[in-house]
């Protein structure tokens, strides 16, 4: 008897725990809340395929990150050359992220060497050749440093994207790193997928470059070549009448005088004259100084505002601007201006990102899927319950009770582990309904066999459970192995399936072997039933 009550206590405890864990979710649904309000504040998460939303896998182009770093270093060396007034020194960026420097004249070579030793000690010298008094120096960065840049690029991209999404206003976004250079993003409930992708994927490199007004952009376009030191960039404008995109070529000096790195703020403002939104940006102290100098030195010249190699506008510099503020205009809609401000505030991505995988589910499909899933559970469950009662009579009822407890345990387990329920997950629950019956069938068949041999109900039940238990464990272990493998290798929805399948198997083992045994024992021992309806 002591054994008995101890077992009852354990079973009751397990069922109660599951119930407690599922209670918050039930309360949430009844009161239409979004977050659990009851202890223990855990809820069943719905996968993207059930609540709608977007799943993205991005890859950071880490190669480009190294490339940009080399570009930056090249610019810096050039700036130093100008500062020290070293003559006859030419720098070229060549493939494989290398810099080739050609310096003529002993004095220049000495000066150049000096700058290298003083300011650019991180560079690695690949080769040095002297031909006719010209020093050819090939440099790059050491592998370890390059690897570091790549690693940092992904980490930085992750942070920047997280910043942008935070400002976008998605509830419970999931942003994480996947491997060396991939980023996994899940945005539940997102409806405007285009806007989200634009916001996330834009490199957002803001540059201020002077226009090359000495040469003709149209000629450069015809020759498909820009004069040295300049590049051909386009401005894309949507003609409001024809709604077609018009591309205007601009010839722009390659060197960026100022970049978005110096921004401290970006806000949307409305131009009172044209009633159009624009983005007002503010530079930090250093940026403001550079901006003041640039505008002072280049009055009446045109300054192009370039974002991701696209010209947004190229206004004429009227006068020196000391305040460190500027406007970015471009025929924006409210939304476009807002998104641009978000991107500028969060900062540029260190390298471009490519979308490797996208899965978006609209909310209507999500809802349909839930309904279809629930219907299947109700009808499938009902059929099985009915069948068990018809075939095994009252014992069938006991098996049905086990089934219902199974579902409770699965739901409680999902809530407790904060696992995600997906559409395949619902299929997994339904599958377990069918397979859990197996354990009960094994036991009941054995009991019937034992009773046919003439044993008493109590003895038959005892023998039945004993014989069947090992077989049940054996059989379920294999499905459990399959479920665990699926969990390890599966992605999103499939993981959900593996979770419910595993929980279902464990639950059915518990209910079939322990719980139903208790019910039988209670009926036969305590209630002293003489016959067994099976």
């Amino acid at each position: 008897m002591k054994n008995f009550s101890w077992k009852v206590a354990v079973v009751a405890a397990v069922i109660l725990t599951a119930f407690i864990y599922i209670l918050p979710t039930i309360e949430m649904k009844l009161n239409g809340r979004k977050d659990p309000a009851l202890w223990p504040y855990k809820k069943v998460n719905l996968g993207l395929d059930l609540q709608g939303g977007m799943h993205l896998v991005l890859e950071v182009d880490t190669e480009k990150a190294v490339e940009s770093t080399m570009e930056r270093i090249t610019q810096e060396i050039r700036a130093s050359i100008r500062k020290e007034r070293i003559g006859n020194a030419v720098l070229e960026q060549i493939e494989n992220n290398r810099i080739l420097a050609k310096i003529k004249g002993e004095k220049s070579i000495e000066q150049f060497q000096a700058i290298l030793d003083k300011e650019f000690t991180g560079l690695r010298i690949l080769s040095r050749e002297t031909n006719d008094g010209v020093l050819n120096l090939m440099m790059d960065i050491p592998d370890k440093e390059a690897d570091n840049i790549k690693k940092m690029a992904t980490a930085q991209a992750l942070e920047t994207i997280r910043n942008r999404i935070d400002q976008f206003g998605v509830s419970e976004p999931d942003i994480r790193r996947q491997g060396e250079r991939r980023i996994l993003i899940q945005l539940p409930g997102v409806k405007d997928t285009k806007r989200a992708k634009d916001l996330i994927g834009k490199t957002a490199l803001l540059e201020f470059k002077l226009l090359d007004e000495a040469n003709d952009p149209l000629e450069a376009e015809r020759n498909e070549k820009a004069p040295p030191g300049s590049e051909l960039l386009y401005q894309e404008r949507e003609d409001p009448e024809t709604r077609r995109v018009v591309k205007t070529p601009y010839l722009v000096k390659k060197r960026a005088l100022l970049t978005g790195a110096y921004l401290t703020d970006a806000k949307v403002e409305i131009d009172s004259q044209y009633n159009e939104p624009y983005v007002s940006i503010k530079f930090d102290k250093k940026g403001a100084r550079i901006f003041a100098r640039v505008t002072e030195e280049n009055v009446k010249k045109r300054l192009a505002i370039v974002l991701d190699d696209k010209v947004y506008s190229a206004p004429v510099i009227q006068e020196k601007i000391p305040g460190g503020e500027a406007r970015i205009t471009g025929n924006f809609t409210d939304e476009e201006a807002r998104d641009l401000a978000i991107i500028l505030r969060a900062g540029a991505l260190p390298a471009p990102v490519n979308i490797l995988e996208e899965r978006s589910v609209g909310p209507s499909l999500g809802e349909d899927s839930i309904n279809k899933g629930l219907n299947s559970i109700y009808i499938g469950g009902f059929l099985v319950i009915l069948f068990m009662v018809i075939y095994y009579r009252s014992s069938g009822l006991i098996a049905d009770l086990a089934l219902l407890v199974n579902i409770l345990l699965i739901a409680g387990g999902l809530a407790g582990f904060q696992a995600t329920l997906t559409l395949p997950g619902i299929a997994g629950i339904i599958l377990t309904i069918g397979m859990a019956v197996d354990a009960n069938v094994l036991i009941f068949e054995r009991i019937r066999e034992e009773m046919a041999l003439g044993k008493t109900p109590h003895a038959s039940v005892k023998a039945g459970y004993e014989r069947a238990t090992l077989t049940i464990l054996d059989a379920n272990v294999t499905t459990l192995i399959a479920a665990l493998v699926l969990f390890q290798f599966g992605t999103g929805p499939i993981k959900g399936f593996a979770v419910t399948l595993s929980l279902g198997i464990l639950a059915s083992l518990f209910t079939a072997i322990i719980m139903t045994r208790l019910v039988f024992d209670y009926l036969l021992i305590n209630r002293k039933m003489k016959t067994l309806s099976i």
Partner: protein
Amino acid sequence: MQFIKPGININFIGGRKIAFYLSIALLFISFSSLIIHKGPRYGVDFAGGTLIQVKFLSPTNIDDIKSGLDTIDMGKSSVQLFGDPEENEYLIRTDKSVSTGEGYSHKVGAALKTATGNDVDIRRVEMVGPQVGKDLREKALFAMFYALLFITIYISGRFESEWFKSGVMAGGLIFCVYSLSSFDVSIPFLIAAALVITLVLFWFLKLKYAMGAIVALLHDVIITVGVFSIFDKEFSLPIIAALLTIIGYSLNDTIIVFDRIRENLKKYHKNTLDVTINKSINETLNRTVLTSLTTLVVVITLFVLGGGIIHDFAFAMIVGIVIGTYSSIYVASPILLVWQEYEKRRK
């Protein structure tokens, strides 16, 4: 109530020759279909590409849809009805894993609305780049490989009660696979090699129960994949999940029968093997029929009510359950007999 009367004695083993030919025929058809179709029909998950699920608010003509797609240069995409005809849902599939960043789904929606004159709802978009497609293919194969490995270890240990042999088994398998993988062979080849090695090891280590179970498993998986190929259904991630579940389920079945066989071998050691096997199958028949029935009822419910993706998953499960039950009786058990006959002949 009882479907199968106790004391029933159907001569299952007697019919094994017919079953053998049937199995060979099914396997042959499966392989032929796969060869004709040049492999399984990979879905977007494995082949890469873009899939868009659209729903129209009123009945639409497929040709209108196609001409609509043509206007945005997607004329080569395949368009298929999805689910019940009353739902007016279609799947648009193209091989290009188009950069979906350019407002793709909007373009498609607008083009379709103009071409068909109906309101359209973009229900789902799936874009898988070629790299990710390749990754998923590999993951799927590895999943099947590891499942096979662990199940092999478990069966060898549990069945033959020879944990030592099962350790040797596992060790041998892992060793061979590692050495092969250093030769930079493709993953499917590796998996096939692993299977062959497994069977060879079973033979040498005399693990006859394990061999019977694994052969039955392979039989089930190949025929399920073959049926999918015949019906020209797509292979996607949920289908792999279905295959792994079928593996687990079929093994369940086989284990139940084998357990009985071993129990009866001990009890009735005077009987010949085929009589014992028959007796065991008959004794477990009730349970086999019942479990298959209840699981089928549940899976058929999914098939009918589950909606598009679950529908294909349920189809795979139905085929798997039927074949799995069949194979426990007519593939796994006869192998035990064949083994015994082989051993007798060797003496």
